[in-house]
């Protein structure tokens, strides 16, 4: 169809189509972005968390620590508690094993028992060794570890925390 043959009716149709398409795109494309926005945000916040002074930790005895993280989801703020145990395996300052005390079975908090020399879970009698391996009970895998840690200049142990 050449320009000369374009009738008034066809011109209106084409113009309506184009203007409608532009309006649709201007509203529609941002709307899609608006909907999927939470999926595009990097949810994981990470930080170095101070755990305690190294000089306070006895070699061979798990040192309990806990900290709180505030999560912001949209307009909602939730504080979540985290806890764990830092174990100095030898005098060497870097020979540390840092475990998350969240039971790998159903997320109860395990406690170190001096008498049992094991981590015991109050919920389903799970038992973990000082290195976090499963000794008894239903947990499917050993206790989680905080693998990344560092010592500050004034001897404070810090762990690297990453939000899931």
């Amino acid at each position: 169809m050449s320009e000369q043959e374009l009738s008034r009716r066809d011109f209106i149709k084409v113009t309506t189509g184009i203007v409608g398409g532009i309006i649709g795109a201007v509203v529609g494309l941002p709307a899609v972005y608006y909907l999927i926005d939470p999926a595009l945000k990097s949810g994981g916040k990470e930080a170095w968390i101070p755990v305690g002074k190294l000089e306070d930790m006895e070699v061979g005895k798990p040192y309990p620590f806990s900290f709180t993280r505030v999560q912001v989801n949209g307009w909602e703020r939730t504080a979540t508690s985290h806890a764990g145990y830092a174990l100095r395996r030898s005098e060497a300052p870097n020979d540390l094993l840092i475990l998350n005390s969240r039971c790998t079975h159903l997320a109860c908090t395990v406690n170190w028992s001096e008498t049992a020399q094991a981590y015991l879970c109050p919920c389903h009698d799970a038992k973990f060794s000082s290195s976090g391996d499963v000794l008894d009970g239903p947990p499917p895998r050993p206790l989680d570890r905080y693998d990344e840690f560092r010592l500050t200049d004034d001897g404070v142990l810090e762990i690297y925390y990453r939000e899931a």
Partner: protein
Amino acid sequence: MILKKLYNWLDERLGLKGIYDNILDRPEPRGNWWNTLGSASLFLFILQGATGIFLSVYYTPSPDHAYDSIQYIMDGVAFGWLVRGIHHWGATLMVVIVFIHMLRVFVTASFKYPRELTWLIGVGLLLATLGMGFTGYLLPWNQRAYWATTVGTQIAGTVPLIGEFILKALRGGTDLSALTLQRFFAAHIWMLPAVLAGLIGIHLYLIIRHGESHLPTKED
């Protein structure tokens, strides 16, 4: 061509050509921009519906979080400001357009036989649109919204004899509370849109049935 075949297949079963001819290719008495206000109102209704649905993805009608959730839409969500902005200004524009539409129908005497019902239903549409404005105004749950609704429901309460009852029914109790916010929200997103959609359906049917009215001449 495959598209042509597909179209023909659908047309045979759906009667697309008939729908197109009756709805979009109706004869107009004479080109007149004032006659487009109804279509403009319909477009705004659809736009408000679409942006409203998107807003409901993040908005929460609770006194604790309504304000925060709107702050989040404005600052935290990509293009949230745009979606809410369109809904906000579209609401004002819709009231204005619907009102001018009514004035045009009045001035051109288009409400006369056989279009009396179209006019009556149009009055219902105007009231429902104002209802949308009234209920939607409370949802941001800021000072202006709170006091505007306090005053608005108070005015409804001045009706003789049943005023007290109307006020309580609107607020869901004697005070403006969480119940008020919740019922205004329900009215705003479910009841009034359902009423609007139903009335629009009848309104459109009547317009297609009777066609556009011609402008009155000196003899009329």
